[in-house]
C-alpha cells in the first residue's frame, strides 16, 4: 500500500511538473495584462511540433548514442521547440491581443478562443504540407531520445520512467531560471513592477509593451519545454493535445493563485498528485481513470469556492 502510494506520488509529480511548466505561462501573462491567454495550450502544442520539426530537419536521427542524444539532439529539439513557440506567441500577442489592450475584457477572451481554434486547425491542415513531413491530422509518433525514452530507474520497489524524471528535472531547472530571471534581471523586476501597478511602472520609465512581450516569451518558452516532455512521456503528439493540457494547466494556475509564479508551480504539482491519487484511492467505479479529469475540474471549482485567491494567494484582481 505504501509502495503504491509512493509510486502514484512519483507519477503525480511528473504529471504535475508538466502542468506546472504550462501553468507558468498563464500566470505570468495574467499577472501583467489580466488576460486568460486561452491559446496558451496551443502554444504548448506548437512547441512539441516545433521540436519534432527540428528532429526532421536533423535528418530523423534514430541511431545516435546516449551522450550524443543527450548533449546534442535533446538540446537542439528543445531549442527548436522554444523558437517556434516563442515566435507564435509573440505573433499572437502583436496581432491579436495588443490592438485590444484597452477593450472591454470580453473582447480579448473571445479573441483568445479564436486564436486557439485557428492554431489547432492551422497545424492540422498545413503541417503535413511541408515537404517530407507526416500528416498531422492524426497523432504523430514522437522521436525517441536515447538515454531517456524507454529507460527506467528503480528506487526500492518504486519505478520511475526516465521521461517522467526528465519532466521533473526540467521543471526544477526552469524554476531556478525563473527565480533568477524574476528577482535578478532588469526585465524580470520590471515584470513584477508592472504586474503590481502598470501605471506607476510606466511612470518609472518601464516600457510596458516590452514587459508584456517578455511575459509572453517566457511563458511560451516553458510551454515548449513541456511540449517536448509531453512527447517523450506519451510517445506521440497531436494537434488536439493543447486543449486539455491547457485547461488543466489553467486549473493549476488558479489552484496556486493566478498571478503568482511560485503558486503556478505548486498548483501544478498538487493537481498532478491529486489526479494520480484519485485514480488509485477513490474506491469503486468512480476511481477509474475515466474520471480523473472530472476530479481535476471538481478541484478547480472547490478551490474557487473556498479559496479564490489560491493556495499561495495572489492579489485578487478586480478591474470592474
Amino acid at each position, binding site marked *: 500500500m505504501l509502495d503504491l502510494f509512493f509510486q502514484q506520488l512519483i507519477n503525480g509529480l511528473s504529471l504535475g511538473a508538466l502542468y506546472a511548466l504550462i501553468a507558468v505561462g498563464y500566470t505570468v501573462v495574467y499577472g501583467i495584462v*489580466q488576460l*486568460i491567454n486561452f491559446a496558451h495550450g496551443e502554444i504548448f502544442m506548437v512547441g512539441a511540433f516545433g521540436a519534432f520539426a527540428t528532429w526532421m530537419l536533423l535528418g530523423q536521427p534514430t541511431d545516435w548514442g546516449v551522450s550524443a542524444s543527450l548533449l546534442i539532439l535533446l538540446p537542439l529539439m528543445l531549442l527548436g521547440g522554444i523558437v517556434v513557440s516563442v515566435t507564435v506567441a509573440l505573433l499572437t500577442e502583436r496581432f*491579436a491581443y495588443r*490592438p*485590444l489592450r*484597452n*477593450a*472591454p*475584457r*470580453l*473582447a*480579448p*477572451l*473571445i*479573441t483568445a*478562443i*479564436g*486564436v*486557439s*481554434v*485557428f*492554431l*489547432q*486547425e*492551422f497545424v492540422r*491542415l498545413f503541417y503535413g504540407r511541408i515537404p517530407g513531413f507526416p500528416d498531422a491530422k492524426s497523432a504523430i509518433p514522437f522521436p525517441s531520445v536515447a538515454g531517456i525514452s524507454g529507460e527506467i530507474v528503480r528506487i526500492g520497489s518504486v519505478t520511475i520512467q526516465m521521461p517522467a524524471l526528465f519532466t521533473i528535472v526540467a521543471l526544477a531547472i526552469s524554476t531556478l531560471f525563473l527565480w533568477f530571471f524574476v528577482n535578478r534581471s532588469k526585465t524580470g523586476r520590471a515584470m513584477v513592477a508592472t504586474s503590481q501597478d502598470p501605471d506607476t511602472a510606466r511612470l518609472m520609465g518601464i516600457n510596458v509593451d516590452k514587459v508584456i512581450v517578455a511575459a509572453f516569451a517566457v511563458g511560451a518558452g516553458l510551454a515548449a519545454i513541456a511540449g517536448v516532455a509531453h512527447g517523450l512521456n506519451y510517445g506521440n503528439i497531436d494537434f488536439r493535445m493543447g*486543449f*486539455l493540457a491547457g*485547461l488543466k494547466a*489553467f*486549473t493549476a494556475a*488558479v489552484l496556486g493563485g493566478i498571478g503568482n509564479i511560485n503558486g503556478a508551480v505548486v498548483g501544478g504539482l498538487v493537481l498532478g498528485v491529486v489526479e494520480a491519487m484519485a485514480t488509485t484511492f477513490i474506491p469503486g*467505479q*468512480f476511481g*477509474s481513470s*475515466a*474520471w480523473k*479529469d*472530472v476530479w481535476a*475540474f*471538481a478541484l*478547480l*471549482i472547490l478551490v*474557487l*469556492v473556498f479559496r*479564490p485567491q489560491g493556495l499561495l494567494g495572489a492579489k*485578487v*484582481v*478586480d478591474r*470592474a
Partner: protein
Amino acid sequence: MRVIISDETKVRFRYPARAVGIVGAVLMIVSIFLPWSYGSGALDDVGFYGAPSPLQFAFVVLPVLILLLLAIPLVGKQRLGQWAKTVAWNTSAKTASLATLATVLIGLAAIAIELKGLVNIDVGGFTALVGALLAAVATPFLPDSPEPTLARVKSPTWLQILGIVLMMAGVLFAAAFALNQTDAGAFLTFVAFLVGVVLVLRQLGVMAWIGIAGANNNRVLVLAAFATAFAFPFTQNGSDANMSIASQVLIFAAAALGLNIVVGLVGLLDLGYIAFLGAGAFTAAILSESAFSTLDFHPPFIVVVLISGTVASLLGLLIGAPTLRVSGDYLAIVTLAFGEIFRITMNNLDGNDGPNLTNGSNGIPGIPDLEFLGFNFGDAHVIFGVDIGRFANYYWLMLLVIALIIVVFMNLNYSRIGRGWVAIREDELAAEAMGVNTFALKLLAFAGGAFLAGVAGAVKAHHDVSVTPDQYVFLESAFLLAAVVLGGMGTVVGVLIGATILKLLPEKLRFFSDYRLLLFGLLMVVMMQFRPEGIVADERRQMEFHDEDEELAEEIEEELISHHAHLNPERRGFDL
C-alpha cells in the same frame, strides 16, 4: 481601403462619370440576355441567349438600381422637389456599383472554378465584367450626396405597414431562393448579391425608415416576422434537405438566444453552455420511449420538456451558486471545465465506469418522434396542397419555442430584472452599491438561460433521433458564443442572423468543410478587432466598445433622439 478623390476632381468629372456609369449599368443589363458561360455546369446554367436564368433575373436588380440612381437626377433638381434631398443618389450608386462588381467577380470565379478554367466564361460574363468595372470606376468620381433624409419623411401608418410586409416578403423570397441553390457557386453569388442589396438599401435610408416604421408598429413587425417564418416551409415543396437545415438552425438559434441572456444582457461569459443543451437532450432521451432508454418512466412530452428544462436549470444553479461570486474571467474557465465534466460524465455513465444511465459513448439512439395530442411529428401531410414533411413539423415547434424565448427576453429586457442585469454588466460594484441584488440576479440569469437551453435540447433529442456525448463538445459552446458575438450581443435580431450564418454556411459550402474551423477562428479574431459589437449593434454595447470615438458617440446620441421622437411615449415593454 479608401481612395481619396478631391472634391474639385469630382465636380469636374461629374458628367463623364455619370455617363460612363450609365453605360456600365446598361451593359450589365444587356449581359443577362447573353450567355455567361460555355457549358451548363456552373451557376445553375447561365449559357443561353435571350433566356436569363433565375439567378441572372435576381442579379439584374442591382444594375437597374444603378441605372435609376444615375439617370433620375438628370431630370433636374426642380422637378425632383423634396426627393432630391431625401435620397442619397450618388453615394447609393457608388455602393451599388461596388456591390455589383463584387457579385460579378464571385459569379465569374465560380464559373471558372466549377468548369475548370477562365476560358469557360462566355461573352455575357465579359460584358457584365466590363459593365461592372466601368460603373465601379466611374461612380466614385461623382460628388458625395448629403445624408439621406428618407427616415425623417412623415408617412401614414398604412404605408409603414406595407413597407414592413414588403420587406418580410422579400426576406422570405430571398431565403427560399438562397436555400434552393444547391450549387455552392450559385449560392455564394446570390449571397453576395443579397449583401449588396442590403448595403444599398441601408445607404438609401430604407433600413432606417423600416426601423422607425417597425418601432411604431411593433406588433405588426413581430407578427409579420413570425408569419414569414411560419410560411417558410410552404416555399420548400416538401424538400426535406432544406427543412432539416432550417430546423437545425432554429434549434441552434434557440440555444444561442438563451446564451444571449447570460452573455449579452448580464455579461457573464459562459463557455460551457452546450452542456445545458446536452442536459436537456439527455433527459428527454432517457425519458423517451426509445428502446435504449435506461429509465422506465415515460411521461408525455409536455412533462418531459418541463423536466428537461428543470434539470438543466438545476445544473445551472449547481454550477452558478459557487462560481458566480468570483470575477468574470474565472467564470469563463469554470463553465468551460463544467462543460468538460458534463461530457466526460455522460461518456462514463455506461454501466462500466459508473451506473448505466446514458449507454456511454454510444448514447441513446432510436428516439421516437414526438406525439402531441395524437399528432405524430414524424408524419408527413399536405396543407394547402403543399407537402409538409417531418422536419417542417419540428421547425414549427421550434418556432413556437423561439417565440416564447423572444417574448421572455424582450419583457425581461425592459423590466426591473433586465435593468438590473444591464447594470451588473456595465459595472457590478456600482450596481451593488445602488441596491441591486447582484448575486441573485446573476443566478437567475444563469438558471433561466439554462432552462431555455434545456427546452431546446429536449426538442433536439427527438429531432436528431439519437443523443451521444460527443455532440456536446467544447467547440459547440464556442460556436454558440460565436453566434451571439457575430450577430450582436444583447440583440435578438443579431443573434438570429448570427446563428443562421454559422449553421447555414457550412451546410451550403461543403467543399469548404476542411477549412471551416480555420476560418471560424480567424473570423473571431478579426471580428473582435474591427467590429466587436457584431453585425447588428446594440447601441449601448457599441458605445462600450468604442468609448474613445467621440464622433460615434454623438452620432448615436442624435440617432437615439430622432428615433425616440418618433415613438409613442407610452410604449413601455413589449407585447404580443
